[in-house]
């Protein structure tokens, strides 16, 4: 007979693969549409298109890996799920949210990869550069995976050793895990903005190969929102004593910091606006290299709103007495 802990762990595994599979599906779909168009004109480009289409698949793979880790670590696969504490189950939900939502970054990667297919179909030498740009929006999924791995490591899911959690009621830590998952997971949607910027970078580089470096500079800007999410997740882990396994958080604090996670996570979506600006700025710099500095100023404007959220997230942590 399984308990609430195992139920939550199953939900976590479901979120991890479910949402990331949705992201990968959409991303691969966007890339597939571009690939079909290219292959209709140039059937010999099938192999090249296939490589680009493989890029947004990784998010679902990260989701699958996390789901398997959760299922195995909590005994839902292999037995022993009866004893899973609620706190560990909640951490598993946090892992699912982290990897699942961050998996939506595949949409951005799909946008970039479809640009890459178009460029490489016209100019084969663009394949390497196209892949480099298309790989950028995967960073958000990687951050989601990093946070999930850390959470699984702290809670003993990776090693199937959750002794501290069995001995003490650490439900609060579980809520912090959920907050971390929301912070890094939803902020992962910033990849859509990054994908738009990368598509602009690919297009500019295809026209002028010397634009590769500058295109990269603009294309990494919309990643900052995900970094804010990662910073908040790491701060939450640090302030609640996860790194040292000397947990110092009560249930109310744990639930309250979900607000911090939501603040920085949702504000991360502002990167879509930044991505649009960056894409425009790349085009502008391509035409006139002198406007690089001004383009950067326009591009960082959207980020200010994410900084507001970062401040609020830190204030919440301070307000609930974690700092």
């Amino acid at each position, binding site marked *: 007979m399984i308990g609430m802990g195992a139920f939550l762990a199953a939900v976590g595994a479901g979120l991890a693969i479910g949402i990331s599979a949705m992201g990968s599906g959409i991303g691969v779909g966007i890339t597939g549409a571009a690939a079909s168009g290219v292959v209709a004109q140039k059937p010999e480009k099938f192999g090249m298109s296939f490589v680009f289409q493989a890029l947004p698949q990784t998010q679902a793979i990260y989701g*699958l890996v996390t789901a398997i880790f959760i299922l195995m670590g909590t005994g839902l696969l292999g037995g022993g799920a009866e004893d899973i504490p609620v706190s560990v189950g909640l951490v598993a939900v946090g892992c699912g949210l982290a990897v699942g939502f961050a998996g939506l970054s595949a949409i951005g990667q799909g946008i970039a990869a479809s640009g890459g297919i178009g460029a490489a179909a016209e100019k084969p030498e663009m394949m390497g550069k196209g892949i480099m740009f298309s790989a950028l929006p995967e960073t958000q999924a*990687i951050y989601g*995976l990093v946070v999930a791995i850390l959470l699984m490591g702290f809670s003993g899911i990776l090693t199937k050793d959750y002794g501290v959690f069995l001995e003490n009621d650490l439900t609060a830590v579980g809520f912090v895990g959920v907050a971390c998952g929301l912070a890094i997971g939803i902020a992962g949607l910033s990849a859509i903005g990054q994908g738009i910027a990368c598509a602009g970078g690919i297009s500019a580089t295809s026209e002028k*190969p010397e634009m590769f470096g500058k295109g990269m500079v603009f294309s990494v800007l919309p990643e900052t929102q995900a970094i804010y999410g990662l910073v908040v997740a790491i701060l939450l882990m640090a302030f609640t004593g996860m790194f040292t396994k000397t947990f110092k958080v009560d249930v109310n604090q744990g639930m309250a910091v979900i607000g911090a996670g939501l603040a920085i996570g949702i504000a991360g979506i502002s990167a879509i606006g930044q991505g649009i600006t960056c894409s425009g700025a790349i085009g502008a710099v391509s035409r006139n290299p002198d406007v690089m500095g001004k383009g950067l100023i326009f591009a960082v404007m959207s980020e200010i709103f994410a900084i507001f959220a970062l401040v609020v997230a830190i204030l919440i942590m301070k307000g609930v007495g974690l700092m």
Partner: protein
Amino acid sequence: MFYPARMKEVSIVVHDDWVDELVKNLHESEMVEITDMYKSEKDVKEILMPGEAKSEAGECAALGLRIGRITGILNEEKHEGFLKKLFFPVKTEKYRVKVRGVKEIIDDAKKVLEDIETKVLNANEALEKNKEKIDELIVTEQQVSLLESLDFDLDFIAESEYVTVKAGVTEDIVELKNRLKGKCAALFSASVNEKNEKHAVLIVFYKDEEIDSRKVFTEFDLKLKGRPGKVLGEIKKEKEKLKEENRGIISLLKELNNNYGEELLILDDELDIERNRKEVTARFGKTESTSVIIGWTPAKNEKGLTMLVEGVTNGYAYCSFAWPKKPEKVPVYMDNPRWVKPFEALTEMFAPPKYDEVDPTMIIAPIFVLFFGFMLGDAVYGAIILMMGLLLLRGAGRISPEMKNSSILLSAVGASTIFFGILQGGYLGDVPARFFGVEPECLVSGLKDPITILMIALIIGLMHINLGLVLAAHQNYIKKDYSSIIQDQVSWWVLQPSFAVIILHFLGWCSFPLTVVYFAGMGLLFGLALLIMRKKGLFFFDFTGFIGNWLSYARLLALGLATAGIAMTVNIIAQMGPKLYSRINLPLSLIIIIIGALLGVYGLKKKKGIKSLVIKAACVFLLTVGLSVVIKMPVLFALIVGGTIFIVGHTFNLGIQALGSFVHSLRLQYVEFFGQFYSGGGKKFKPFKTDRKYTMVEG
């Protein structure tokens, strides 16, 4: 080594009697990039006349085109498989030749063309015509075959005084009959496929009737006589006759290739080289009896080039060298040791360095290799990559320099992956522990101790970023831009330890004496003040950017763990696969066998290609699965099901993770590392050099 080679601007004034000899020697020596005098900013061009291409240039180009066309026909590309081309290509030796004069080459080319050009072109035209005819006959054959079941004289298909007879096929016989109701005198039909969906049709209708048969009837425009059976026989004969003719033509072309192939390829190379030599004079400046050549050469070539110029012109040339005045105009020659050369492509993919900028290849080469190994971290995957690299080195690497570089790169990352695989205990994921109960010794495992790996990754990140800052400071020092050193680099060297002390103290992870904390606080303020002086209001973005760059190295952990995690998932599924044995009953196994057999029949029809291979493999898989259940051999079932999942899963994992490791390892160089000191954008040094595809000079 850490900077592109120092270049010198070279100016050569040569007497016209020695121009040809000098150009030939410069071409072979590959030491100089020749600048177009009239596109340069040289004041001297105002008093010079523009140079002109030599008269032979046009003739060489025209003859080269004709020779190229003939060699193209005679050496029609042989279709080698992709893998064969990569790993086991047929290497053709280069022909040894003596250097000849342009006149001799042109005369030879004319003679050879006179001998064989018409023969080859006529033969090729006949070959193409016959191929077209064969294609047409194949279409006719297909149409007549469809009508064979109606068995009527094909000359019925015609218009007569009162009726029109048409033949063709329909996929909707009912609709066709409806449309023809009351308008046609007769309609004969016969099914031509098993499902009764497609029918061959012969329609006889009154000439003054208008029939709407759009979309339901495909008409065959046949102008043939006799019954279909007889016509098919004739078509077959005709096809054979054309094929026989083509065989004759191909053997004639082969014979011509045997007799003239070598000579044609040599001429192709020689004419191309001569054309380049005769065209390059258009880039020179001219006086009445001298030519003025300007260009760039690596400074180390100065002595050698001077000797070459004086030697070949017997002293009838003057050669001078000068250091460049505007660095942005200087072409960039990346002067790296041999072992670093294969990695230059990675730097060039971002952008070649500027002339006065650090060439980062020497630094990114080992770091890229280490990061790749860290991220993939599986000894068996590494061994596979290393093996592929070595095979490529022996295969396509012998033929193409680019492939040679790729194979060296592949071998290096393969070896690094083996090293990190052993350190992290990854052997196809957890195969030793899962299947053999052996826990391999390892230094640190990502699955068991992710925090340690994260710490290592972040420490590596800090070192990598600071190495970038050191390089930036060095560049600024050379440019004597001391304020940039203070504001852009020293600021970070003050901020990093100060920030670390404050954070560690604040979190209670470390206790420092109060004096250290005060100093750290002052350092933090000082560092921030330097940043604010430099970036004004945007300093905050620099600060968050730095933290972002640092945290980005966490991907070293994530990708390594993803490789191990997916490999483990594949192993689990491969382990679970054989358990399906008990779920497959006899009827289900028979269905599997039937599907396998049908796939086999379908697969045999397709002779070549990946699709056919996949179908045949699926056929073998299904037949073995089905038979193992029928003959009650669970071991065979376990081997084929588990083995297939294992091989396919690990192949997929290796492919996707190797791509990921390559791309993300490179990203850490381009974004996080280059971001500190490198912008690139230089123009590559393109020496005036011979491109011998088929020949090499004797002696």
